[in-house]
Structure formats: C-alpha cells, structure tokens
C-alpha cells in the first residue's frame, strides 16, 4: 500500500441489536424456546426468565386434554434424545384460562403450539387461541408420536398440509401462524411453498426425526410406545440443510431448529437462512442455555463489527 495517510478509525459500532422480525412479530432476539421443552412457560422461570427470550413456544395444545403415552417416554441415545411423550397437555381452554395470563404478565412473547387428530380439532383449538393473548400460533403438522391420523400424517402430504394450514389461518383471524414441518419429506421445497401459499406467516423446521431404540434383553423397544422422535445434536446437520432448502424456497421467515445448543449453532442456522432459531433439547440439558446463547450472540456480533443479523441471514455460500 502506498497510501501513508493514517487509516480512518472504523465507524463506531453501537451495541448490537439482536431483534428480528418474524413477519408482523418483532422478537427481541432470535432465540426461541421450542415446544415441549419449556412447559407452559413459567416452570423454568427461576433459571430462565421467559421474558429474556425472543419468544417461548408452549407445550403442544389440543382442543381437549390429552393423557400422553406410556412410560418410558424419553431415553438418551448416542448424543441425543429419543422421545415419545405423546403430547400430554392440559388442553387449550385450561391453558388460556390458567397458564397464559401469568406468562403474559411476566413479559413473555408467547407462541402456542397447536396439535390435533383431525382438521376440526386443529381449527377448534386455533379459534380459542385466536381470541387469547398469545402472540402467535405454531401449527404442529409434524409430531411423529401420534397414531394416524394426526400430526405427521398432515405434514407428510403437501395437499393435506395446505388444506389444514388454510383452515387454521382462517380460524386464526389475523394472528400470526407459523407451520412446523417434519424433518424428512419427499419434496421439502414443494411442501414449504404449498404451506406458504395457504397463508402461513412463517415456517419452523425441523420436528424430531422418527426413530427406534431397542432393548436387547427384553427384545422390546426401549420407549413405552415403541417408536419415538430423535432430537438434539445428531439432528443438527439435517436441520441446517432443511432450513437452507426451506429458506430458499419461500419468502416468509423460516425458524430453524434441531440440535442448536450454543450461540454459534444459532448463527449457523441464521447463515443457512433462518430468521429465528428454536432451542429444545439444549434447554432440557441446561435450562440456562438460551440465556448463554443470547449473551454469546451479542458478543459474536460485536467481535465481528456487526450491529444485527441482516448481513448474515441466508449468506451461506453453497458453491
């Protein structure tokens, strides 16, 4: 370099703004608690105050209470968890009446995960939630632990997923509605586009990966119900790939999940195209992990001279 003039000081970088927009929703940061790992929002408040997170998605809610599956419901597999809880939940009415008011009073941004065995059940639950204080809905079309029909049987079929999404969007009466997709489908970009065209405000993926753990001595599955859903670090490479494929197929925001434990994991999902990232198994392993990730995000952005995520989102170079 022949220019000997003193280099101008880099522009002053203010503290990073971690906020992200999920369609019409503004989240204070991109870290969201995944459904099934944060209860009804206040159980972990001593260790992880829900208002500190971008949002919390509460346990999957059905129109009427569900008892869930027989024990054992979770086992640890190599590096991950295999679960078949079976969506035990108190039902949408009890949630809206008892659990939601204190959670909103605590300052949380609340997403309600909605489950059902038939379109009418999804629609009925969505109607009740549309009248409530929840900030958004997450339509769960991808639970692997329900007998068919229900859950995954909707998410595996683009026609069924689109019909269900359209019905739920109508019932949501303008409340933002995110659709949670399964990890493996024949044509993910097609499924994502159909769900987007049906009116979804955002797409979250991936749900757990169907799996089986075997007890050699009893010659039976280790889980009470047999099959389960795999979560945690083993899922992360798959989840990153599907997040990328989905984000490049649709224009609505994508929320990535699957094995995110740290700020670096969250940033990898954002590079792949995610607007926000859900943490799930990480919370079960350490309920303070979302707080650590949020701190780490601010630090990482600062260290890299960035003030937000806009330059990072979807910036992964594939070739």
């Amino acid at each position, binding site marked *: 370099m022949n220019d000997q003039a003193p280099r101008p000081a880099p522009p002053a970088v203010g503290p990073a703004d971690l906020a992200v927009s999920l369609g019409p929703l503004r989240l204070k940061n991109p870290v969201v608690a995944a459904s099934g790992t944060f209860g009804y929002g206040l159980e972990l408040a001593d*260790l992880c105050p829900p208002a500190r997170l971008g949002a919390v998605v509460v346990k999957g809610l059905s129109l009427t209470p569900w008892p*869930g599956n027989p024990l054992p419901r979770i086992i640890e597999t190599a590096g991950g968890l295999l679960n078949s809880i079976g969506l035990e939940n108190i039902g949408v009415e009890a949630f809206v009446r008892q659990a939601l008011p204190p959670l909103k009073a605590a300052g949380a941004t609340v997403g309600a995960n909605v489950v059902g065995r038939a379109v009418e059940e999804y629609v009925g639950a969505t109607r009740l939630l549309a009248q409530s204080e929840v900030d958004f809905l997450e339509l769960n079309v991808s639970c692997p632990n329900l007998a068919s029909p229900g859950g995954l049987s909707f998410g595996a079929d683009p026609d069924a997923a689109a019909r269900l999404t359209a019905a739920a969007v109508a019932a949501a009466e303008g409340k933002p509605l995110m659709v949670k997709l399964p990890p493996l489908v024949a044509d993910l970009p097609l499924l994502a586009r159909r769900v987007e065209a049906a009116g979804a405000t955002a797409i979250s993926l991936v749900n757990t990966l169907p799996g089986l753990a075997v007890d050699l001595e009893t010659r039976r599955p280790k889980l009470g119900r047999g099959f389960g859903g795999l979560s945690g670090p083993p899922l992360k490479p798959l989840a990153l790939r599907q997040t990328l494929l989905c984000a490049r197929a649709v224009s609505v925001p994508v929320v990535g999940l699957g094995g995110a434990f740290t700020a670096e994991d969250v940033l990898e999902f954002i590079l792949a195209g995610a607007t926000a990232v859900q943490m799930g198994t990480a919370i079960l392993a350490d309920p303070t992990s979302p707080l650590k990730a949020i701190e780490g995000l601010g630090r990482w952005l600062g260290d890299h001279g960035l003030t937000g995520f806009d330059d990072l989102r979807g910036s992964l170079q594939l070739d």
Partner: protein
Amino acid sequence: MTAQAVSARPDAPALVEARLESVRDVGGRTFLLRLSLPGPAPQPAWPALGRFAKLRAWAPPPAVPLLDRPFSIHRSAPGQVEFLIRRLGPATAALTAARPGQAVRLTGPLGRGLEGTAELAAGRLHLAAGGAGLAPMASIMERLGAGARLFYGERTAEAQVDLAWLQSWAGEVEAAVEDGRGYGRRGLIVDRLDEALSHDPRPIFGCGPPGFLRALAVLARRRQTPLLVGAEAFMACGLGVCLSCSLPLTGGGRVRVCREGPALDGLTIDWEAGR
C-alpha cells in the same frame, strides 16, 4: 456465572458450580459424594427429606452423556450437600470417579419431599429402601431419630453397602438379600416389612425401583397402611417441562415425579399402567 438467575424464594432451584469435597466408597458399587456450595457461609442447609438435585461432573452439553443426572439428596448441612450414588453407567462412573476439588454442576434443590406431610409430622415411619433407594433415607432418620426404622433390601450380596457404615447413620437395620449370601435375612425386604407391620404398624416411606414400589403398594393396601414413595422415573429436565416422568393416577390425571414428587402418595399411583 453470568447466566445464572437469582430468585427471591429461599428454596428456588439454582444452577451452581459446586466443588467436590470428598468421595467415599461405601461398598456395593455405591459412593458417598460430599459437595460444597459456592457463596459465603453460613448458608441455610438445603432441604432434603426426599428432594433431589441434578449433577454433572463432565463437560457441559452437548458433550455426552447429554443430560445431567438426578439424585436424591442424602443429607445436607449449611453449605454442603451429600449424595449416595450407585455406579451403573457412564454418568455415575464419571461422578463416582471424580476427584476432590473437582467442579460439579449442581441444579437444585428440586421437587417436593416429605416436608409438610402428616406422616412426617406424626414422627413414626417405616423406611423401606430397595437398592439405591437407600439414598434419601439418611435425612429422614436424622429428623425422626428413633421414630424411624430402616428396612433395606438388595438382590445380591455384591450390591449391599457396608453394614458398619449403614449402621453409623441408621442404627439398627432390618436387612434382606435375595441371594442369601450377604448380611440380613434371605429373601425379600417387603416380607420383613410385612412382619413388622403386624406388631408395629406405622406409615411407610419407600424408595426404590418401580417394581419395588409396586410391591410396597400391594402390601400397604393389604395392611391398610399409609404409603409415601420416593418415586423414580427417567427424567430429562427434572424441572417439570419434558413430562418424561409423568405417572398416571388410579383416579385419573397424572403427577410429575420431578415436580409434584418425588415424595408422592403411593396408593394413588397406577402402578399397573404400562407394565
């Protein structure tokens, strides 16, 4: 730890870095771990009496084993907590092989114990321990003194803890071993308890594997004796959110071992579900 939340409730769970003070091999592949809590002493002692905590003596998540492991609190004193841990798998191997001075991640105190129960207030209990179910009994013996009698059963002599150590905190112990090779009577401890109930009726607090608790429930029904259990189930979170430890009740509804328990009314649990 910057991410640590502070709560006003004295018994609210905290996630802290404790220090391992000592590890003592007490026989039967079982080890007594004494941890010191961070922060200025004196502190109020942690609640025990059937409550539990999660421990981790290896690299933080996502290292494997992925999950911290839950253990009954054996005893507590201001600034100190003790755990009785049986070496069974990789997590308990790491914990029991840890060296004094090592940091141990400790989340607790968790769940509900016997405090506030009529059975504890009445001051007389038969304590029935199946195997590693011995762990929560010491703090109850401390509280009740002669009001508590310990019944301790194992399958094999190799699994029995050292008798002298056991007697050092439990006094006179009624022991049984199924293989007949160790100390105590040959057979099932539930049968010894049955005999005792015939001339010394008291409420029971039982802790051990599900099959053992099921047998206690059958006995307690037949003897028309109140039964509290320190229930055991696989826990991912230990904090009430994952629902892996949700037990069905005979009258409908469910309870979480980690939140409504581990101390639960053993006669209300549907022990036959999912067998």
